[in-house]
């Protein structure tokens, strides 16, 4: 059981690199609230419907790890429960890395998605990749836990290419940064 303090402290440390104190603090605030406001929801089956985009008929991408199941090129993939944008998995990056030539945004917003394999609620950081124009591949929009812009750290409509050299948006990742509880 990681205490919240320890966890946010580690986050701060990890993110501090290459980011201003200001955005680190904002990100810290975002992280805590982000983790807080999400009731833990099952990944909606309906999420495969066109309203969320369909990945544009992209061939499936598997993690190869039974504990991380599903197609990382599909809007249905468990980590994408609140993603909004092009999947970096289809753009030269991966579910947790940015494509070459881009810069990963240090500040972002955070969702909580349940892993159907281990039933844990993971805190997912939707870091945007910035400095290259719209990737155009695998557009998805899912909004479980998404709230109005009055709660920035819970809203996926902001362009989270903030604190980066360029605010031009290329694609979105879905990085595991912790477990909501153990």
């Amino acid at each position, binding site marked *: 059981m990681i205490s919240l303090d320890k966890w946010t402290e580690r986050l701060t440390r990890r993110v501090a690199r290459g980011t201003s104190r200001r955005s680190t603090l904002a990100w810290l605030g975002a992280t805590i609230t982000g983790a807080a406001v999400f009731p833990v929801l099952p990944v909606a089956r309906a999420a495969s419907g066109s309203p969320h985009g369909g990945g544009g008929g992209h061939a499936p991408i598997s993690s190869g790890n039974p504990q991380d199941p599903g197609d990382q090129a599909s809007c249905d993939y468990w980590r994408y429960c609140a993603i909004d944008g092009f999947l970096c998995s289809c753009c030269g990056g991966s579910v947790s890395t940015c494509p070459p030539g881009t810069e990963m945004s240090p500040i972002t917003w955070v969702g909580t998605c349940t892993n159907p394999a281990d039933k844990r609620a993971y805190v997912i950081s939707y870091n945007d990749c910035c400095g290259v124009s*719209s990737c155009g591949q695998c557009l998805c929009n899912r909004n479980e836990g998404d709230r109005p812009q009055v709660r920035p750290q819970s809203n996926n409509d902001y362009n989270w290419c903030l604190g980066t050299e360029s605010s031009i948006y290329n694609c979105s990742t879905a990085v595991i940064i912790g477990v909501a509880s153990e």
Partner: protein
Amino acid sequence: MKSFALALALLTSGASFVGAAFAAPTATVPFPKALAEEPIPMVEKLPAQWPASWILVHDFHFNSILDGRVMIIDTASVDRPVRGMVRAAQFANMLASSSRREILTSETFYSRLTQGVRTDVVSIWDMVTLLPKGEIVLPGGKRQQSVTYPQLFQFTNGQKWALVANFTPAQSVSVLDLDARKIISEIDLPGCAQLYPTGVRGFSSFCADGSLFSVALGPDGKAVTSKVVENVHDIDNQPMFGTPAWQGQTAWFVSYRGRIQGFDFSGEVGKALPGAFDLGSAEGAAPEWRPGGWQVIANDAAGKLYVLMSPNGREGSHKDGGTEVWVADPASKTRTARIALRSVALAIGLTKDAKPNLIVARADGEIDVHDAATGAFLRSLGKAGGDNPILITVP
């Protein structure tokens, strides 16, 4: 260059008579005179007063967000729906003013398209020529960039000023004097978002703690008074879509669960109107009907409210788009009609004429026109709204 052009002329003037030799004889044809030559150059202008059937549709242009556009559309014209387009670059916002005869776009540019030096600008376009009239540069690279919300860029002070939302994520508002072409003040807005013009000169914003924060501005654009009204917004259980339907200075909001709540922004302090009401339920839903889309509530000149509804309402469905439009009367607080759409839609708007039409921007990019009174489908305008029509503005 000159010699080149003349060389070409010489090179081929001989050959041109060969070309002529191919031409068909005209003695046998029923049209004695050839079609007249047409003047060059010729560029269209728009009418000084746009007809009531004209709207503006924001194409977010996901595949090139830095090249977003606003399409100007005549909803009465099937064969010429597109009347022009205006640049709306990089998560831009747009304002149209019939009295100023101007379209304003708040935009962001980079010196190398995707990289280099950032410049934020409010561009001012003439509504007749669609040519740029001027711009106001916004220093600091802090203009808020989001999927386009109308309430991030608003008029106040009788359209003499514009308000621009900033987000770095530090939140603030820049106050612009449009005629002086300059920023006259900036107001910090920690923890609050979206701008609802309030009173004669001011605005309100919703805040993260569920309160409403109202600011009255002085003649210099600086804040004179401000007031917080607590607990007007249950963000967890009844979150409201940020974009309301405006009836004068009354704004009608709808929540993710279909509750209608009015706010009065006519005074110096925004106030929640008593008597929120629910749109209710209906058959044919799994699990239930909820508002769904990007611009889900609109109203006609008579004040009737129209809400875009999804039959698959659940947590997270609020941007999925809707298949019906429900009509409600805020006076009687009752639902008066249901309009079935032809396809999943993301945004709705209503023309302001006496016999209003319901304009529907579909998820597949098609624009449909319905009779708002009967709900009957009237015409499709094809892809006149561009790739990703997400907002409809009726000037």
